[in-house]
């Protein structure tokens, strides 16, 4: 195509000494003009008790120590409720209840009957979906849009899905006679409280095990609401027990000789501690730990959609996601364009009250997590990376952080190696396919990765070379109960979801 010079009235506005390359086009203005009025989700319909006890053997019982601790709303720092602190005696009681239930009836119950309970639980979650979503948002800081549209539906789906497997295990493992392990001790994190509870409880019950579950100390409320539903569902006593507490409570559970299987989702650091603790015992263990996923944009990617995928990859759930796409790799030839689009998109993200339906990025889960994120921001600046954040307003109370990106990052920077677990993106460039595969795999983690290209053959070629348990192509952070999730290397082992999620809870 020939080069065309445009002689128009517009030329008057351009100084003749400037050429097109040096003239900067004025940036687009977002978040001005038409401002969105507050659109808070109503919280008046939820029922929260002032104090919650431990759910053991089908009843809410007081903690042996009589101790309780507060749980707050990280967006306002206000107290929501207080929950019990389980000590060794309580852990023992819970494990014994689970053992009793397993031996006396749950192991022997016809699979179809087990399935009916699991199905009932999923229906009850659906019926109270709105209440669960609001409580999840209040307790953890995640936006109502996400808890309503993603967390709660997925949690109900997990129970539906595994209800279906309960009486089909002989088809899941043909000719192999899978049997339940017995009592499963499960410890879950604060980033997807209800969803992680569903990921743990559903497959355990489907395979005939009983459960003792410990939710995270900053987000116990939806697990306790689930306990109320479980009680109402008529699930036999002791099949599911939910005990709240701090790290020590989890440790006591891990060390209890009456537990046959441990399932843990959380930090790599604690995962290692648990691994050491069960070494030499015959407890089965699965771990779902941290990640530092590479999100890779090739020059033939559909760029605007890729930018959306970058945003979803790192700012979804405030970046509190083990599989977050926290390392962005952009092919150098499209780097400037991608960065421009990314910055424009970040300017439209709204940080604010998680209960507001228009909020894109909610509150950071706790002060300690906010401190960690701020620490890494300082490290990044010190390492010489260039820092960019949108100029949006933050609420003046609560724990909040703007979405941030670092450019000019090197593979050897700490912010490119260590998991930050916040809305902080580290951006590097690459030149060839081989280079980016090497750099993507050059990490002790191996949980997830994302690949963006319009070329189908490249997708198939690349995804098999990524050392990551979950690889997304032209999308990111997509979950489904049918799809197994888990990592390699220091991201843990074992899979949750799908057919693979069953085997960890059987004798196979």
């Amino acid at each position, binding site marked *: *195509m*020939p*080069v*065309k*010079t*445009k002689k*128009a009235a*517009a*030329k008057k*506005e*351009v100084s*003749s000494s*400037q*050429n*097109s390359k040096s*003239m900067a*086009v*004025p940036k*687009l*203005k*977002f978040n*001005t*003009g*038409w*401002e*969105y*009025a507050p*659109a808070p989700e109503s919280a008046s319909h939820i029922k929260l008790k002032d104090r919650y006890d431990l759910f053991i053997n089908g009843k809410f019982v007081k903690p042996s120590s009589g101790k309780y601790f507060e749980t707050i709303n990280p967006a306002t720092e206000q107290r929501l409720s207080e929950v019990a602190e389980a000590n060794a005696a309580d852990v023992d009681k819970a494990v014994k209840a689970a053992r009793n239930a397993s031996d006396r009836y749950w192991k022997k119950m016809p699979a179809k009957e087990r399935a009916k309970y699991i199905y009932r639980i999923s229906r009850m979650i659906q019926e109270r979906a709105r209440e669960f979503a609001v409580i999840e948002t209040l307790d953890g800081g995640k936006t109502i*849009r996400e808890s309503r*549209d993603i967390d709660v539906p997925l949690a109900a789906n997990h129970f539906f899905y595994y209800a279906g497997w309960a009486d089909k295990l002989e088809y899941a493992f043909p000719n192999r006679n899978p049997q339940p392990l017995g009592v499963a001790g499960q410890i879950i994190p604060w980033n997807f409280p209800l969803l992680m509870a569903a990921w743990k409880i559903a497959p355990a019950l489907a395979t005939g095990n009983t459960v003792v579950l410990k939710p995270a100390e900053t987000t116990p409320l939806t697990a306790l609401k689930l306990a109320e539903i479980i009680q109402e569902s008529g699930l036999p006593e002791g099949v599911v027990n939910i005990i709240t507490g701090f790290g020590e409570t989890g440790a006591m559970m891990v060390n209890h000789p009456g537990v046959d299987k441990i399932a843990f989702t959380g930090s790599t650091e604690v995962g290692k501690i648990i691994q050491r603790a069960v070494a030499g015992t015959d407890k089965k263990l699965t771990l779902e730990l941290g990640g530092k996923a590479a999100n890779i944009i090739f020059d*033939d*990617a*559909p*760029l*605007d*959609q*890729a930018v*959306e*995928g970058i945003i979803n990859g790192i700012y979804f759930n405030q970046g509190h996601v083990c599989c977050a796409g926290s390392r962005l790799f952009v092919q150098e030839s499209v780097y400037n364009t991608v960065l*421009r689009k990314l910055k*424009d998109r970040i300017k*439209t993200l709204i940080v604010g009250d998680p209960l507001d*339906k*228009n909020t894109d990025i909610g509150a950071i889960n706790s002060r300690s997590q906010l401190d960690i994120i701020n620490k890494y921001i300082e490290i990044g600046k010190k390492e010489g990376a260039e820092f960019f954040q949108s100029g949006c307003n933050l609420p003046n109370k609560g724990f909040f952080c703007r979405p941030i990106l670092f450019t000019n990052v090197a593979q050897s920077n700490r912010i490119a190696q260590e998991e930050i677990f916040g809305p902080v993106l580290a951006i590097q460039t690459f030149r060839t396919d081989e280079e980016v595969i090497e750099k993507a795999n050059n990490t002790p983690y191996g949980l997830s990765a994302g690949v963006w290209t*319009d070329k189908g053959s490249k997708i198939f070629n690349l995804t098999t070379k990524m050392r990551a348990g979950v690889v997304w192509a*032209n*999308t990111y952070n997509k979950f489904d109960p049918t799809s197994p999730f888990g990592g390699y290397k220091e991201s843990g082992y074992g899979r949750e979801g799908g057919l693979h999620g069953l085997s960890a809870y059987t004798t196979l």
Partner: protein
Amino acid sequence: MNVVKERIVIPDFRLSPRVDQVGQEERTSRFTKRSIKKETKVEGLKLALSMIDLTTLEGKDTEGKVKQLCYKARHLHDSYEGLPTVAAVCVYPSMVRTAKKSVGDSGIKIASVATAFPSGQASTEVKIEDTKFAVDNGADEVDMVISRGKFLAGDYNFVFDEIAAIKEASGDARLKVILETGELVTLDKVRRASDIAMYAGADFIKTSTGKIQPAATMPVTLTMLEAIRDFYYNTGKMIGMKPAGGISKAKVALHYLVMLHETLGEAWMTNQWFRFGASSLANDVLMQLVKEKTGLYQSADYFSID
């Protein structure tokens, strides 16, 4: 904000950027999750009204029909004070003279379709004549159609040159280029056609003639907005956007405004740079405005159809 660069390099349209359909649908669904309430909603509804190109494009149009439409354009709902008028009235070239007289000094623009609308299957000479006739009769804006057959056959040079010729024939009138996205089908093609139109001289790019299904959709419109954004950054020139056909509900119009606001920003949020090509949208917007004021929904009978 229109600071056009001195030298604009025309790209090879065969290499136009790819668009991922699934990703685009996800992004547009997120726009629909925005909760637009209270003063934001009232502002948005009034803005939407001011962006409407009130349209009649029927074989059976007459002077009488056009006169009545123009009156509605000027008096959308007199019992509600402080309403804007629509941006323009859109008619066939044969009705331009009548429409021009009927809108008087209200500031409402006359947009005329041209170039053998809606099919575009005619010689270039005929299309230029059609355009000149409309402009001579007083059209402020020309809505042309591209030659979809030539486009799909890969003759991008032809499509480009034709648009440039019509731009010249339009004189001072602003040129809207209708891509007829329903016939282009894929978002890749929509992007390509958008780029050709803008580099060839379009002032606005428009989705549809409204004569076939599907007409305007959010993924298609978003693709075109993104094309406009890239063009702006490459050349410094602003281009307007007009989704046309299939937008009949106020709620949907608000979703489009959210999409516009979050893709191109404040500068495009006026009827100088964005229009709704709609015939039945106005009354639904009016109904919503009255509801915001009074708290009650009135039946459609309380809003005149023209």
